[in-house]
C-alpha cells in the first residue's frame, strides 16, 4: 500500500484583513490620544468615589508634593491661539520686572508644570537638558514677604477668568500646606476647588444604616 504523503507546505494565512483592522484601530487611537502630562514630582493621589472627569482646558493645576513643594501648571485654553501661558508669563514679567526674550516666552508656553522662584525661571527656560532643568524645580515660594504663588494664581486668573482650580496633592502632603494653598487661592475670590483623585468604588446601601 502506498503511503499517503502529506506535502510539506508552510500554511499561508492571509493577514491583510488583520492588518487593515489594526491600522484602523491604530489610527483611531493615535488621533484620540491625549498624553498624560508628566507630574513634576512623584505623587500618590488619594482615592474617592467621584466619577467626575477633570476638564482638559481652562484649568490651573496646583501640585503639592510630600516634601511641601508647590508646583503650578496652566493650560493654553481651548482656543490655543489665545496663548494664555505666554500672557501669564508676560504678566509675571511685568510684576517682577524681568525681561523675557520672545524665545523664552515660546519656550514657556511649550513646557508644562513648573515650580521655582522667579529668579530661577530664566535659567530653567534656557536649559535644554531635562535633567539639568529639573534641578531648578525647588517649589514656588509662598512666604508672606514675597508670595510668588499668590501672584501666579492672581495672574492666571486675570489672564483666563474661566480657569478652574485643581489641586493635585500627594496623599501624605501635610494638611497645613494644603490649607495655606487653599487660603491663598480663596483670597483671589475662588471658592470652588477640584481635588484630583483616583476613582474607587464604594457600595453603600440602605441596609448599611446601623439599627441604632
Amino acid at each position, binding site marked *: 500500500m502506498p503511503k499517503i504523503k502529506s506535502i510539506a507546505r508552510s500554511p*499561508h494565512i492571509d*493577514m*491583510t484583513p*488583520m*492588518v487593515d483592522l*489594526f*491600522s484602523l*484601530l*491604530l489610527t483611531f*487611537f*493615535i488621533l*484620540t*490620544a*491625549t*498624553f*498624560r502630562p508628566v507630574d513634576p514630582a512623584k505623587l500618590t*493621589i*488619594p*482615592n*474617592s*468615589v*467621584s*466619577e*467626575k*472627569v*477633570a476638564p482638559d482646558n481652562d484649568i490651573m493645576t496646583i501640585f*503639592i508634593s510630600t516634601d511641601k513643594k508647590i508646583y503650578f501648571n496652566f493650560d493654553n485654553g481651548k482656543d490655543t491661539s489665545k496663548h494664555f501661558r505666554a500672557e501669564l508669563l508676560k504678566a509675571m514679567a511685568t510684576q517682577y520686572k524681568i525681561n523675557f526674550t520672545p524665545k523664552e516666552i515660546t519656550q514657556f508656553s511649550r513646557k508644562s508644570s513648573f515650580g521655582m522662584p522667579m529668579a530661577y525661571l530664566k535659567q530653567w527656560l534656557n536649559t535644554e537638558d531635562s535633567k539639568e532643568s529639573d534641578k531648578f524645580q525647588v517649589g514656588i515660594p509662598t512666604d508672606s514677604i514675597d508670595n510668588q504663588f499668590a501672584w501666579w494664581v492672581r495672574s492666571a486668573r486675570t489672564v483666563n477668568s474661566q480657569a478652574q482650580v*485643581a489641586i*493635585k*496633592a*500627594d*496623599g*501624605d*502632603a*501635610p*494638611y*497645613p500646606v*494644603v*490649607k495655606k494653598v*487653599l*487660603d491663598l487661592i*480663596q*483670597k483671589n475670590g475662588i*471658592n*470652588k*476647588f*477640584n*481635588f*484630583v*483623585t*483616583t*476613582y474607587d468604588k*464604594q457600595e*453603600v*446601601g*440602605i441596609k*448599611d*444604616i*446601623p439599627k*441604632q
Partner: protein
Amino acid sequence: MGEVVTEEKAQKGAKKRPKKHPGRIDMTPMVDLMCLLLTFFILTAAFSKPKIMTITMPEKDDNTVPPKIDARRTLNILLTDSDRVYYYVGAIEPGKPQPQFVRSNFSKDGIRKVLLLKNKDLFTKITEYNESRVKGKIHVSDAAADEHIKSLKKDDNVGPIILIKADESAKYKDIVSIVDEMAITNIASYAIVDLSSVEKTLLKAQPR
C-alpha cells in the same frame, strides 16, 4: 520577415508575462509592530483621564457674620495624625460640660456608620430615588436626576451639619477621605473650618 516579428513578439511576451502568483509579502513583522503600538496607545490613552472631586468652600469674608447653626444638628469631626478621627455632637461652650470626644476611623464601620445613622432620612430618600432609576421605574436624564438630588439635599432640614476640622498633623488624604465620606453618605451640608483653641487642647489630650 513576418516570422521574425512573431518570434520577437513571442520573446517579448515571454519576458513581460507576469508571474501567476504575485510575490507574497510577509506581513507578520508589520502585524507585530502594529500590535505593539496598539497596545501602547490603548494603555496610555484609555485610562489617562483623571477624576476630580469638587468642593466649594465657604466664602472667606471678614465682614460676613457666620450663620447661626443649630447646635443639636452639628456634628464636629476632628482629624489628626495617624488616621485618627474624633467626633462630638454640639458645640463647646464656656460654662457647660465639655462634650465627650468619640474616637473613630476611616474604615467601613468607622465614621461612615455614624454619618449614615445621622443622615438616615436623606440617605434613604436619595438611595431609593437612585435605585428606582436603575430599575427603570423613573425615566429621567442624568442632569434632571442630579437636579432632583440637589433639591432633596437643599430641602433637608433635619440632617446633620458637619464641621470638618483638621489639626496640623493631619494629612491631605484625611481631608479627601472625609469629604469622600460626605459624598458616600449624601450629607447635605458640611464645611471645612478651623479648629478652636479649646478643641486643639482637647485633641492633644486624647490618648493615642
